[in-house]
């Protein structure tokens, strides 16, 4: 089949050393990108260069390397700010990842806004990272934890969401893209609805950050969290964007070095944004790797990547539909590059083991989103998720493997 590709896929694949290996003596097919993406050479080299030549602790040294490191680190913050179009780099907090960002918010924003009898609203399709921190906050504060339902197609029930907003929750926190169903939620609309009541909205962008161009000003979200490792950057770095007015009002989350201004035995005053939320030595090499990943994505082009991934997903859906007994979990109108499915009564773990033996990495299980499994009454799913380096040929290999597993297990 001839397809018009928006960029040279073979050249892109050459940038990712991990793709070029045999697994169980078979060419490696990596379709677990919603869990983490592989890293391009530029990112790996950036991390290496930091430790080989530049390593020093930033923000406090007067010596040459420390100053160079500080400049590089703060430039990376500006790169992130530009990437998501935030007004200022003061709105960019570096964290360990999306989970860390969410815990920061549940603790700090929770402290600021949520009291006994208040409520917090999430949806039934959240990853545990955007579910459990809020749930536990509500338990601690004796607040109500509100969960907007999802429809049979795997979309947020907007009527239910609107109904719950009328209870005037103090915080709304929603996934941009479901890591299980692939659903792209209509967050523009959901944010607008919450803002009618002046409720701040947190967006879990873990799955959307490498799926589409993010513009936090256009979205008008109050917070946006994402992880580096799901967008071709190193593990251990994430970002929390927050509107300055909120970040200014929020109390610090963790205490320690860098985040303080003055410390005496009697009292401590805290540093300005963004440092107020960055206690301890940051993961500098990972932040610089994140900057390289952003440059890499922007060189190829966000729009081109999104267009190509959409072609992949349409092709995968069409090919998987050939498998006898297949049932897609979630049939959203707007889908990111994630497909969850089951085949007849076959346990996803069984199928996953056979597909693994054929050299293909997919994910099986509940994907850290047990409320979705409960909603659909299933133990788990098989999930394939795609990145810019996947190919149509890999989808063919994957579909053949799914068919083989189905034959062996039925």
């Amino acid at each position, binding site marked *: 089949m001839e397809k018009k590709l928006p960029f040279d896929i073979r050249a892109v694949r050459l940038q990712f050393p991990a793709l070029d290996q045999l697994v*169980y003596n078979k060419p490696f097919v990596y379709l677990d990108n919603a869990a983490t993406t592989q890293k391009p050479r530029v990112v790996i080299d950036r991390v290496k260069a930091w430790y080989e030549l530049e390593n020093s602790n930033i923000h406090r040294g007067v010596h040459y390397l420390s100053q160079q490191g500080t400049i590089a680190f703060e430039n990376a913050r500006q790169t992130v700010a530009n990437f998501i179009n935030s007004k200022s780099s003061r709105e960019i907090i570096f964290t360990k990842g999306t989970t860390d960002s969410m815990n920061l918010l549940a603790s700090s924003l929770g402290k600021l806004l949520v009291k006994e009898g208040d409520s917090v609203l999430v949806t039934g399709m959240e990853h545990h990272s955007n579910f459990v921190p809020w749930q536990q906050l509500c338990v601690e504060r004796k607040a109500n934890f509100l969960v907007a339902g999802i429809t049979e197609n795997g979309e947020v029930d907007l009527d239910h969401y609107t109904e719950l907003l009328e209870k005037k929750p103090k915080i709304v926190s929603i996934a941009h893209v479901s890591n299980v169903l692939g659903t792209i939620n209509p967050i523009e609309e959901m944010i607008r609805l919450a803002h009618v009541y002046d409720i701040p909205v947190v967006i879990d962008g873990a799955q959307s950050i490498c799926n589409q161009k993010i513009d936090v000003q256009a979205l008008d979200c109050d917070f946006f969290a994402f992880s580096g490792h799901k967008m071709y950057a190193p593990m251990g770095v994430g970002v929390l964007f927050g509107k300055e007015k909120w970040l200014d009002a929020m109390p610090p989350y963790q205490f320690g070095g860098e985040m303080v201004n003055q410390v005496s035995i009697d009292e401590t005053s805290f540093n300005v944004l963004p440092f107020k939320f960055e206690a301890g030595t940051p993961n500098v090499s990972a932040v610089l790797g994140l900057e390289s990943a952003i440059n890499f994505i922007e060189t190829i082009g966000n729009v081109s990547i999104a267009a190509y991934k959409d072609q992949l997903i349409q092709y995968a859906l069409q090919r998987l539909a050939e498998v006898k007994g297949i049932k897609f979990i979630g049939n959203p109108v707007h889908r990111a590059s994630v497909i969850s499915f089951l085949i007849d009564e076959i*346990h*996803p*773990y*069984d199928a996953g*083991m*056979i597909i693994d*033996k054929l050299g293909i990495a997919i994910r*099986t*299980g*509940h994907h850290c989103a047990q409320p979705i499994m409960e909603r659909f009454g299933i*133990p*788990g799913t098989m999930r394939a998720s795609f990145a810019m380096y996947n190919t149509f040929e890999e989808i063919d290999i994957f579909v053949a493997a799914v068919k083989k597993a189905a034959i*062996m*297990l039925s």
Partner: protein
Amino acid sequence: MTIEQTQQQIIGEFSIFDDWMEKYNYLIEMGKDCPIIETQYKTNNYLINGCQSRVWLHASFDGNIVHFSADSDAVITKGIVNLLIRVFSGHSPEEILKSDTTFLDQIGLKEHLSPTRSNGLLSMVKQMKLYAQIFQLKANQQVNE
């Protein structure tokens, strides 16, 4: 047959397979006719939660011999459950406690008992040993009384 003899027998059975697919087909076949646990024991009380696949295990003791029955919701897991039952069920607590599961290494299924697999199998083996220990304790107490 002793535990050691059963293990050798299984190693023999698996030695005829040329590749992983034949091996897995065999496990799947075995998974289909695993000694199913009685319905009354297929409850949360007997559940070993493995995150990915679930295993139910029941043990009984007649004073000399331990009998195990088990089930799993995933058929490959159930095939391995079947092997473990075949090896350990019908033996004294002493015999169960002094034997191990190295036969799984020799038939190339060691990875399924890795702590990272989260399929419930490693916990199942630990649970079987724990039952044996308790039954042994019980038997010794009765002798002392």
